[in-house]
């Protein structure tokens, strides 16, 4: 018996083809659940085709995206779209606690694997279904991806610089709509597992709604004020709170915080400017942002983002450097917290990636690698009593 981890003892069947569901499964696996990635035979999960690839070698075992989203999982190949495959899947469901799936609404039912069917096998089953728009509603069958879901969720409209609010909206980097949905899926799945109400549940999560929920407080802009913002309003949050300005080696964010804008005079070595209305009065800055910029930009351009940040923080200004993904591994705080982890992979050798979402003192997150395609097929099918001959038979039919 291994050590008791946060989620040891949980068994999860992960059918997800996209990021959200795979990420939910990853969190479960990284905290100790046995998560079985169920992949189509031969080509495997579609994320295996997604860049970045190790040394740019396009190979199903070398996708960084697949690796990152499937750490600590097992891989079983099984064609659940064929009846025999579906029967095997149902046997697995008997011994599992959670199914994660992200097929279009109705697909699972078409294969005889709808929630009502699966519940017959296991009355306590939690099935977490993640779709772009949910299991019902007028957009149910709409096509989407991270980019379009982010726009219709309402987040994109506000993604414009405060100085140029009429420019073309820009999507938040990476795949935030999908990761957001994956995190929510993890929370609701965990809630269902903790719940004193121990009957099975079918969870219906829409990526669009996940995006909308991240808008939180500013939803009240409309229902209380009639306001639809298209960037950050200075009149609510202050200027230059959300602004990133160029400096010697990149950009730095200027959020004054409790130090107060007057402290900026000390920062830029012009104490005589402490009473300059541009530093004393928010209204003056808002009226003439270019004058405020003229005051600070020359000094910023002579200093690096870390020089500026260190000095500003001593003045209790909440300035911060804009760090690139490549600068993170060398960040002193990241290092001290051992945030990046390393793990061995048979094809990709040593892989470094970002680690724990949170530090749990008693049942910590753990690193691990992604499985090779079908690596655990024998083990998993053996665990539900299939003999080597049975498995061979399924292999010949292309089911596994």
């Amino acid at each position, binding site marked *: 018996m291994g050590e008791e981890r946060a989620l040891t003892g949980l068994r999860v069947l992960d059918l997800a083809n996209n990021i959200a569901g795979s990420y939910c499964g990853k969190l479960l696996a990284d905290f100790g659940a046995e998560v079985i990635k169920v992949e189509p035979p031969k080509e495997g999960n579609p994320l295996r085709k997604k860049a970045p690839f190790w040394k740019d070698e396009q190979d199903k075992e070398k996708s960084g995206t697949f690796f990152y989203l499937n750490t600590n999982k097992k891989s079983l190949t099984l064609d659940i779209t064929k009846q025999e495959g579906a029967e095997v899947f149902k046997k697995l469901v008997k011994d599992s606690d959670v199914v994660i799936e992200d097929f279009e609404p109705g697909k699972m039912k078409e294969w005889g694997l709808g929630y009502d069917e699966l519940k017959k096998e296991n009355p306590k089953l939690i099935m977490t279904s993640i779709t772009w728009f949910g299991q019902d509603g007028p957009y149910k069958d709409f096509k989407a991806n991270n980019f379009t879901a982010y726009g219709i969720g309402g987040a994109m409209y506000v993604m414009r610089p405060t100085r140029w609010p009429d420019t073309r909206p820009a999507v938040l980097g990476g795949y935030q709509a999908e990761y957001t949905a994956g995190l929510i899926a993890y929370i609701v799945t965990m809630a269902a597992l903790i719940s004193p109400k121990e009957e099975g549940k079918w969870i219906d999560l829409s990526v669009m*709604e996940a995006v909308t929920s991240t808008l939180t407080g500013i939803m009240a802009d409309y229902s209380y004020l009639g306001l639809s913002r298209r960037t950050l309003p200075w009149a609510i949050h202050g200027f230059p709170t959300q602004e990133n300005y160029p400096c010697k080696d990149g950009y730095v964010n200027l959020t004054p915080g409790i130090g107060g804008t007057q402290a900026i005079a000390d920062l830029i070595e012009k104490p005589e400017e402490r009473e300059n209305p541009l530093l004393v009065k928010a209204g003056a800055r808002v009226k003439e942002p270019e004058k405020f910029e003229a005051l600070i930009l020359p000094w910023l351009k002579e200093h690096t983002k870390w020089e500026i940040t260190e000095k500003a923080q001593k003045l209790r200004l909440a300035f911060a450097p804009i760090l690139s*993904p490549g600068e993170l591994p060398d960040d002193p705080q990241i290092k001290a*917290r051992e945030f990046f982890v390393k793990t061995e992979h048979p094809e990709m050798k040593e892989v470094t990636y970002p680690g724990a979402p949170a530090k749990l003192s008693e049942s910590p997150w753990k690193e691990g690698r992604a499985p090779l395609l079908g690596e655990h097929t024998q083990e998993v099918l053996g665990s539900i009593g299939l003999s080597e001959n049975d498995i061979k038979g399924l292999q010949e039919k292309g089911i596994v």
Partner: protein
Amino acid sequence: MAYKILEGIRVVDLTTVYAGPMGTRILADLGAEIIKIESPKRPDLFTRMTAYPDNEPPEKENWNAGGYFHLLNAGKKGISLDLSTDKGKEIFKKLVKMSDIVMENFSPRVMDNLGLGYEELKKVKPDIVMVSMSGLGHYGPLRDYYMYMTGMEGMSGLTYITGHPDQPPLLSNYAYGDWMLGVTGAAAALTALYYRKKTGKGQYIDVAGREAIVIHIGDVIMDYTLNGRVKERSGNANPAMAPHECYRCKGEDSWINIAVENEQQWQALCKLMGKEELKDDPKFSTMEARVKNRDELNKIIEEWTSQHDHLELMEKLQKEGIPSGAVLSMKEVHLNPHLIQRGFFEVIDHGKDVGKRPIGKQMPAKFVGLESYIPSRAPRFAEHNEYVFCELLGMSKEELKKLEDEKVIGTVPRFPPGRPTRLDLIEKQAGKGAGYVDPNYLEELRKVFGEDIAKK
């Protein structure tokens, strides 16, 4: 029967402003009992004073009317307690003793300085789960940096890769980093509760907002750790997909996202645009060619989209199976037929000065076949003092009165006069306007959510 999946779980909530309250709001939506503690000297100021209903701060108790507070704190109970007093600390520990989770987002030194760090709370309640949420984490050389959402996002790598190449890096303008921190805190708390369910053990959890964001760009980071490549800002361009852009539509500031994943969708798009000749144009006939010639392609497509209404165009594109999404404004989010039919907004009555308003879910997932649990309105300041101190902790009304006299608790927070939001300045920001004010928003909301919206 409304379904409270976390029924019986009690959370002591010390969080303020944005990040922490989002985390506990998610747990509230799942039916946990959240007891939000505020100091009468330092109430949850920013959200309580932002977005007064119809931009009119009420004359009395203006601290109870802020729209941001209502959204972030729906479903919670509210009490007042001054933790800097000995009596306040003693009562707090009694409350911890009968709770499952403590969540806080003070600066890293505060709880220890108060003598209420995890080691102390563990003595009172050995299996307590304590979640500390901060910008950069509770240990490490930069732990005492002053951090807001801006710093957490800026230091995560996410900002660096967001925005157009010819503009500065772009932060989320809706506190996404705060959402990440609070919601990761909630996720960690539930993970610990599951462990406690099996082993009986509690624990301490340290969540750093910056780290919570970094893990959401894992694939981008991997390109660096595997290949040494640093991703640069590329607006809405996608290295593997074109068209993949936000296109201007007919009408003021109206946009649609279109992202074509394969040849079938591309051909359908050409047909819909009435430009079938593009299919065979070598500049656009393969995904690779389209990615390479995306600027030229985008111009052609935008010429077409700018003649159409974004919502109508989305319907047309979807009919042909082309992934597309109108870029919805906050007004359009509230009036969106899909969100409305799915029950994303819950109409919650906030009583006097406010009336009924649609409040978005913070836990958008639904349990199929079970009636959604609709959270109660956000608490008024100190509203549940009597419930918590008398009913839960067994104090008498006299004791409660004495605590009030000793200023350990209070019903009136230290609070500035209410001020309306300067919508006039917002409409003029940077010469272009930071947003649109819809004077008819109440009528619009009433058409969708019922005639009694905002009847005070």
